[in-house]
């Protein structure tokens, strides 16, 4: 396994976007963000806190599940991540259902913390590996949480970027639109336009998403992979063939 897996590219790109902050947390069903946060901390060193939902090793919470949300409400959470069954060009996210509501053809897991954290965490990164017109739609069918809000609504957070299996978009809060930042190696702008159901801004020359270096890949496939396997054993097994932890 020397080629970079798409999951690895996403993890490394998210880790770069996170940079060095005080506190990053990840939510349910988030192996890629979880690994990205752990990688970012490996690089940042002490002083950076990572809370991986579901982990007993990578959490400092001692006040139950509410503490993540309280922390965010206090302004003590800098970065969070959201996936989405549907995402549109204004950063609206649908995590609930398509094809009617509440009687739905397709039910997604649910809004979880999104309808709160998207408002209060300064930088929220959207991620979805599948890049298709099924996911990236002109307008989500159900707004689990909106990308932008009218001025009278208190909001100190929102979308910062969207990373997919094909490219990286940054969100322009002034223009309320995504702007293409980089295409993953081998992906063309035309391909992205074809697969994206919403309009987005585009610079004249689009960069290529940098591939991870060997050192980063070693870290990812070693310490970070083993760490994330605690919470996402099937993910770690699939991507890195890391065996699930033994039962106690």
């Amino acid at each position: 396994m020397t080629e970079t897996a798409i999951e690895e590219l996403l993890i490394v790109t998210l880790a770069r976007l996170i940079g060095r902050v005080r506190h990053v947390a990840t939510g349910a069903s988030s192996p890629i963000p979880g690994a990205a946060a752990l990688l970012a901390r490996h690089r940042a060193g002490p002083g950076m806190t990572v809370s991986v939902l579901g982990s007993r090793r990578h959490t400092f919470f001692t006040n139950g599940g509410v503490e993540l949300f309280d922390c965010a409400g206090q302004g003590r959470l800098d970065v969070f991540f959201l996936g989405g069954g549907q995402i549109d060009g204004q950063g609206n996210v649908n995590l609930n259902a398509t094809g009617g509501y509440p009687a739905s053809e397709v039910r997604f897991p649910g809004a979880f913390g999104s309808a709160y954290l998207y408002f209060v965490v300064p930088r929220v990164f959207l991620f979805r590996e599948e890049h298709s017109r099924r996911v990236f739609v002109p307008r989500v069918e159900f707004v689990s949480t909106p990308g932008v809000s009218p001025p009278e609504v208190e909001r100190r957070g929102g979308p910062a970027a969207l990373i997919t299996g094909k490219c990286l978009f940054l969100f322009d809060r002034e223009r309320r639109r995504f702007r293409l930042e980089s295409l993953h190696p081998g992906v063309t702008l035309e391909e992205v336009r074809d697969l994206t159901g919403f309009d987005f801004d585009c610079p004249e020359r689009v960069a290529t998403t940098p591939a991870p270096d060997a050192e980063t890949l070693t870290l990812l496939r070693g310490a970070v992979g083993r760490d994330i396997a605690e919470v996402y054993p099937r993910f770690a097994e699939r991507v890195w063939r890391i065996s699930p932890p033994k039962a106690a």
Partner: protein
Amino acid sequence: MSVVADLESLAAQVPDGAMVAFPRDPCGAPMAFAKALVRRGARKLHYVGVPSFGMAGDMLIGAGCVATIEAAGGTLGEYGTAPRFAAALRAGTIALKDATCPAIHAALQAGQKGIPFIPLRGLIGSDLVKHRPDWKTIDNPFAAGKDPIVLLPALRPDVAVIHVALADRHGNAWIGRERELLTMAHAARRTLVTAEEIVDRDLLADETMAAGTLPALYVAGVARAERGAAPLGFLDRYAEDGAALADYARRARTADGFAAWLDENVLARRAAA
């Protein structure tokens, strides 16, 4: 008068139609208790997932025990969507109160405090609000200008069900740092506890243990349930049984598959008893 009982008689303490709060899976799903509820044939429950649900909720829905589900989400985690939940929604056989995690927590905290409602930021512009006529948007009375904010009514479940590592014979239950179990118990009218172990000592007698203990005052009954969260994992005590979870996820995709799974894994135990 001891609060210690067996699992089946504990499940008999949940009346049909009750609002029952269950914790999310990683906090210790009361799976053994949920199976006992299926065996007792519970009906029309209002299931509150704190703040979400997993296999226990999906199974109770599939077994026809649930009239209303209130949660921030439902999933089998790495094993996919909650299949009986999705099927019940398609069929329109359950009422849905979709929420967001901090709303469930905050509403329970309001129940715990005995206050009628609690505000929460965010939410405005989410379609969740459209489908929750029980939530009210007001203008923050403390703001100078316009400042809409959502008020959530307090949640006071009839019953909270929790699974813990240790309980004592008085009914004290060690919850460690899973503090939402305490909030649930305070907010609920009565709490039923399953425990991996029931110990003879008093958990409140030792200050270190007391710090993580739900006092007996809130607890109506305790039953021993070894591996009571399986096939899900439980703290550092046992890992999840991936094969069993995958088996459930696969078979529960169809009504027939689920019925067969239920017969083998839940109802058979009654027949054997």
